[in-house]
């Protein structure tokens, strides 16, 4: 919580200089040590049980919080195992091709 407050202080410039990169460092630290990182363990167990779709969904959620490991793992799982069914994605074809 203290790290989060320091990050917000740097982000808004309260009592100290305003710096997005310093704020990003502190908020990254908050994300890295928070309770959400339990999801990394859970998703890793799911991958070991060959349940890739559920693991990918967990990793995607963590990636939106800014965990770089989760981003990389999401990309790797999607690249290797094709977790989503591409034939169900009619809506995206027109966007992609033109």
């Amino acid at each position, binding site marked *: 919580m203290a790290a989060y407050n320091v990050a917000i202080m740097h982000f808004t410039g309260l009592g100290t200089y305003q710096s997005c990169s310093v704020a990003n460092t502190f908020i990254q630290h908050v994300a890295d040590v928070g309770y959400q990182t339990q999801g990394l363990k859970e998703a890793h167990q799911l991958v070991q049980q060959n349940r890739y779709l559920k693991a990918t969904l967990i990793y995607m959620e963590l*990636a939106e919080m800014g965990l*770089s*490991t989760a*981003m*990389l793992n*999401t*990309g*790797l799982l*999607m*690249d290797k195992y*094709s*977790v*989503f069914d*591409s034939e169900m*994605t009619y809506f*995206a*074809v027109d966007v*992609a*091709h033109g």
Partner: protein
Amino acid sequence: MPFDINKYLAFNYFKMSVNHPDTRDEALIKLGDHYYYGVQPLRKKSYSKAAHIYKYVEQTTRDSELRGQALFNLGLIYHFGSYSSLFDKSNKSREPASPLAEQASTSSGDGWTSSLLDQETEEGEKIVQIDLDQAQKFYQLALKEESRAQAPVYLLYLYSKWQSVDLYESIVKELLVNNILKSPANQLMMVVGAAAYLGLLFGTVRYLRKDHIER
């Protein structure tokens, strides 16, 4: 090419994770693979961009495994060049044109041959020349890294060595003409040997067909 949402999302997630220092190298390697194989969001292969990315990874990473992989991929790119795109079935219509384009680019010494190739598929694409010496250098560097995949690197290194050796040049010209046939004694030996071989052959044929000849 059928639409594949996984490749799109994976590409975007790799691009996101490039911004973080602890996952940058691995994500860059995967992005380089995307450029090398030309998977979906890119629509075309780009060996020069892949080589650029691999070179960056090779220079910046601290992970020996990743550096070995980047070096191996660099060696592959320089070993086969852009020529390996000929083996795609989708590019079959371009087959007669591309060797000409490659010859033209080697003669001019410049890689920009976008006017000679199909504009739609290889627009502004820099052609990577086949450079066996460069490839061998990268393979040797990759063999020095602590990578798990030593065997394919070594096999491809031997293959590039084999390709770079000109058999006719080295055996016929260097060994036979320049070394063996220079001294008169060896020339005499060769003539005598040839005469003995022909005489032996003739004698054998005559001996075997003795009955037919006498009749």
